């Protein structure tokens, strides 16, 4: 599967490891193999790349890199052919609800690393892939994204919740 536009997001946290792994030679090479032309990096509180590095990447791999700290990212999500993100629930939901192929990268720089739980569960149910930072480049190269299942939410669940809450408020 080819990915023309790849979106990398770290959410509201700091995840230098993901940004570094993605812009390492191995990471960029894997992107190039997937016919990537544009890489959008939402780096949040992680260190951004220098102008010179961006230029070098463009020359060496033919990949245009756009980076920013924060902005409303629904356009980035919708415009991406592949989403690579940290295991925050928001990012997982963005991947699932927009039916995009996605790789969740576990952030071991965080204090309370419960994120494995969700990523592991969603990966076990075959909605997305997940990996460690050190495995990212390799995963990107070898994974078969056609294997992923579409994510469907039963709207009745939310209605059940609202009904229960209405009942509680009447007590």
């Amino acid at each position, binding site marked *: 599967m080819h990915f023309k536009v790849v979106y990398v997001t770290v959410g509201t946290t700091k995840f230098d490891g993901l940004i570094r792994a993605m812009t390492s030679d191995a990471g960029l090479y894997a992107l190039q193999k997937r016919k990537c032309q544009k890489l959008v990096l939402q780096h949040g509180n992680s260190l951004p790349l220098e102008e010179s590095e961006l230029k070098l990447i463009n020359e060496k791999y033919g990949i245009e890199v756009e980076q920013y700290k924060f902005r409303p990212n629904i356009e980035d999500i919708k415009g991406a052919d592949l989403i690579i993100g940290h295991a925050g629930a928001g990012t997982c939901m963005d991947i699932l609800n927009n039916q995009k192929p996605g790789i969740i990268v576990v952030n071991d720089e965080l204090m309370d690393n*419960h994120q494995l739980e969700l990523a592991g569960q969603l990966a076990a149910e075959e909605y997305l892939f997940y990996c460690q930072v050190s495995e990212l480049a390799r995963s990107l190269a070898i994974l078969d994204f056609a294997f992923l299942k579409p994510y469907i939410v039963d709207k009745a669940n939310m209605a059940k*919740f*609202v009904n229960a809450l209405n009942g509680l408020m009447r007590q």
Partner: protein
Amino acid sequence: MSRNTKDFKCSSTAQKINSVSCKQNMSRNTKDYPTYVILGSGGHTAEMRQIAMALLEPSNCTNYQPMRYIVADSDDTSQSKLSSDLPSIRDSDFIRVPRSRSVGQSWLSTIFSTLWALLWSCWLIWRDQPKLVLCNGPGTCVPFCYAAYMWRLLGRLPANSKIVFLESFCRVDTLSLSGRLLLPLADMFIVQWPGLAECYRHKNNVKYFGRLF
């Protein structure tokens, strides 16, 4: 409502008492006690946005308005994200508060910032008397729930006000720290994965409705 008005016209003592309580009910309805929605950052806000949208559906008979959104003062993104999805929201619906714990903050400084956040929560809950405190797990929500619990015990909040906690979608097998702190006092405590539902099924306040998001 029509029955209530009839009650007001009666004059026997028992009915007078009845009418007083109706009157109180009525004044409670006319004074707009708010719903407090506690926003976190990132994923917490994304979940809460969907909950708020479901509760504000015009077809929903229970009135959750006015909604007040509590945002940590260091959080730049939640307000704009929510405003873009719910255009009816005004800037004055947001209340900015100090954060009790930032992701990655050390435990020692967490103690002090939590105490400060607790003072703030106590003041806000005392001032606004929310009928419902609704939250889904960011650190900011813990002091608010404790403050609401305390003011309800002391009679500042009506006895029928509620504290509702929705465990984050990202909690599959274990409760969050906020969840563990709030499990004993939440009136309803929602989990989103079968593993957790099974684990806490002996708790009356724990509910599971399947995946919501």
